[in-house]
């Protein structure tokens, strides 16, 4: 009985991840929702849906950042996913890179205004 368990364990190979080597392969094995990203500019200047549903004010928009501008602070995002569900234009989606970390706090903030993407 024990020998069977041992043989089965040895036959199934290693389970340890090779990260950070083969990073893309390792990350693509998981479909986790870690942080959202912005796909493109928002055309509806009157809509405030995303900033209204955001519980930690990670998403802000309005006059301070231009009329249609969006500002997403990933450092304040608790990954509730309400913006992803709420936005009718699909501006927000879950990031592919689930291992995001930065050396500066300002690198976690991305803004988007009127078609041009000012990431970082």
């Amino acid at each position, binding site marked *: 009985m024990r020998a069977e368990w041992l043989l089965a364990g040895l036959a199934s190979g290693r*389970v*340890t*991840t090779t*990260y*950070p*080597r*083969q*990073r*893309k392969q*390792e*990350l693509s094995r998981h479909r*986790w929702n*870690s*942080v959202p*990203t912005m796909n493109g500019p928002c055309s509806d200047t009157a809509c405030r849906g995303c900033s209204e549903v955001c*519980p*930690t004010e990670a998403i802000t928009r309005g006059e301070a950042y231009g009329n249609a501008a969006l500002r997403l*602070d*990933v*450092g*304040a*995002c*608790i*990954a509730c996913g309400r913006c992803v569900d709420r936005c009718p234009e699909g501006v927000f989606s879950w*990031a*592919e*890179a*689930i*291992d*995001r*970390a*930065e*050396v*500066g*706090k300002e*690198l*976690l903030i991305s803004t988007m205004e009127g078609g041009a993407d000012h*990431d*970082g």
Partner: protein
Amino acid sequence: MTADHGIPADWDELEEQGMSARLARYFGHSLHIRHIDVGSCNACESEVLALSNPYYNFHRLGLFFTHSPRHADVLLVTGALTQAMAPVLRETYDAMPRPRLVLAAGVCALHGGVFANSSRFVGPVDSVLPVDAYIPGCPPNPYALLQGLLKAIRSREEVKSS
């Protein structure tokens, strides 16, 4: 900025050797991490402890947890900094030998998250200590914790060489 955030798509053998050399130069072949919880909900702790399980197995990179800040190279801070823990965090940092790195992990340590408006919340960790890497996520997954650590070591090297 690309979606890969400046890290090569495939961490090839050369990068691996470079990182090993950096670890050896600055921290003597191994890196010891002191984890401190300054007011967390334990979701971040769950992810931090997953680093040492057989799947993530961060010992293969020469990384270890230590219980004493006097043995630590890295201070890993999780949770929303409360008034009661602010002096403790400062003492822990002061007890660490140089060079020392500070990682802020989780949205509570970076910004406050859902506790940002609490009366007992002091502020983000970088208002108290110099932070080398910011790891977002609620909670950050173990890959992000490793990425933050590797980026912090690399950025410290850039500062040193400039």
